[in-house]
């Protein structure tokens, strides 16, 4: 556990030491903020909305997270591979799973800080009305779980290549695919979409959170996706043994 925490701290420091964190964080806050204000009542004036809710944030934030989080995870292992530091890391007395978990935890730190900075929006809404705090909490739990699932997918792509840009592009495509494309593709074939196939769609699982409902099944779903990506990343890291 100590090793996981040590790696996470190092990753957090490295992330916030690079411009990517500030660019990604700024993009998220700017776009999510703009969407929040423009989307709240379908007009360009937040104050005409007459509704004390942060729901628009939860509608738009996943899109932005799907774009910025692969940019944060792209360097996690691709950079270690390219610079050769992976050789030192994996020959320390830690398991490959601990390395993957440490990296994911470090990236989750960035996600948590970024989401925390958006708390200014519900605080502002609380000053002008009485938003449903349960819905706000549910939405943030959903964003965190969804974000960690995106991070784990990005981390997985980072184990596949030495090239950060390649890791980013594949990670971006994977995140967008799980967020939207499955829905669009499935609708072409199935109407309605069978529940089993909806398992591939993050949006279906996230919608309950956005409405303020924390359904244990949805929590388990995102944790399961993350676990599968973590195991796949670990196997990918171990592939050096037989490649």
């Amino acid at each position, binding site marked *: 556990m*100590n*090793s996981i925490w*040590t*790696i996470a701290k*190092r990753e957090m420091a*490295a992330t916030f*030491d*690079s411009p990517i964190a500030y660019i990604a964080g700024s993009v998220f806050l700017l776009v999510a903020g703009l969407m929040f204000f423009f989307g709240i009542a379908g007009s360009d004036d937040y104050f005409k909305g007459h509704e004390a809710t942060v729901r628009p944030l939860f509608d738009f934030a996943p899109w932005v997270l799907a774009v910025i989080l692969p940019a944060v995870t792209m360097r996690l292992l691709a950079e270690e591979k390219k*610079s*050769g*530091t*992976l*050789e*030192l890391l*994996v*020959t*320390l*007395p*830690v*398991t490959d799973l601990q390395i993957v978990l440490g990296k994911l935890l470090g990236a989750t730190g960035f996600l948590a800080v970024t989401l925390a900075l958006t708390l200014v929006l519900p605080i502002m809404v609380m000053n002008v009305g009485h938003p449903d705090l349960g819905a706000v909490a549910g939405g943030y739990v959903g964003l965190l779980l969804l974000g960690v699932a995106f991070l784990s997918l990005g981390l997985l792509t980072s184990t596949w290549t030495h090239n950060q840009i390649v890791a980013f592009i594949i990670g971006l495509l994977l995140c967008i695919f799980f967020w939207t494309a499955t829905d669009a593709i499935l609708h072409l074939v199935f109407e309605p979409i069978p529940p089993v196939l909806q398992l591939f769609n993050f949006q279906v699982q996230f919608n309950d959170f956005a409405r303020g409902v924390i359904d244990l099944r949805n929590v388990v779903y995102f944790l399961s996706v993350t676990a599968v990506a973590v195991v796949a990343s670990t196997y990918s890291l171990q592939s*050096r*043994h*037989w*490649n």
Partner: protein
Amino acid sequence: MNQAPFAVAAAEHDAPASAVRSGETVFEIRDLVKQYDTKTALSGVSFDVHAGEILGLLGPNGAGKSTTMKILTGFMSATSGSVRVAGTDLQSDPVRIRAMLGYLPESTPLYADMVVYDYLMYAGQMRGFSKQQCHKRIVEVAATVGLRDVIGMQIAQLSKGYKQRVGLAQALLHNPKILILDEPTSGLDPNQIVEIRNLIRELGKNHTVILSSHNLAEVRQVCDRIVIIHRGTVVADGTVDELEGQVAATHRLIVGIEAKSGVAETALAASLGQLDGVRKVTLSHSSQTPTQHWTFDLECSRDLRVALFQWAQSEGHTLLELRRKAQDLEGIFQSLTLQA
């Protein structure tokens, strides 16, 4: 070097290492084969490493030295074969065994964005030590490898020599029983090379060291024993004296001959090959000016200088040069690694 502050913590992590006694076999490497798709990097490498010795893995570029080291450190697995460290199979408990090792990979990969102290703190904590233990040990190791002046600098700003020292410091931080150093002086200037070599010799007093190099002078100066790897196999294993002794029975003679008119080079070589005691004749030089003459490299079972002089005289050739070729480590290395 005072290593007491780390002794208690290290003992918890290095349980298998504590079983290692001077002279005991630390590494038992048997029949290592490593296959990459169509390329065979190692084809049956076997040797032992004993506690307290400095073993040099010598070989030309691409011989399989780094692959061997990557397998010994657990970075990658062999396609077949086994590695036992202090009696424990590497595959059965890799994390425990890695705790016994200090490793400096080739080209010293480091986190360039980190400050030297923070990096060493990170390396120490990854090995399970507390901040206080790490701090004490960093101070000691920084003194040992000469890092005090740059301990607060960012790694990216350091010279190649200092980066090498940072790599050595992280390898030494947990006071490992075994140090594995892959080309530790590669890319350093002559002064830095001398310093690092002296440091390795010093470290060899308290650690078992395996280092790879393609520098003959380095292994001669630093190593107690040498394993020469060529094309993925061990072609020689022994001390410098032993290796030189192995070939002492073979005499190498350089013979420069201006042949009498009408005798071709092939006929001359054939004639030399028929002399009693000549094992191998190799043409090493040919010249047309001022007259046609050839230089041959002869491998003989005994010193044939007198016999060669008499042969040239009886055959009517002119002997331009006749000398013994020194059979040092360089000669051994060349004869083992330049063969087709």
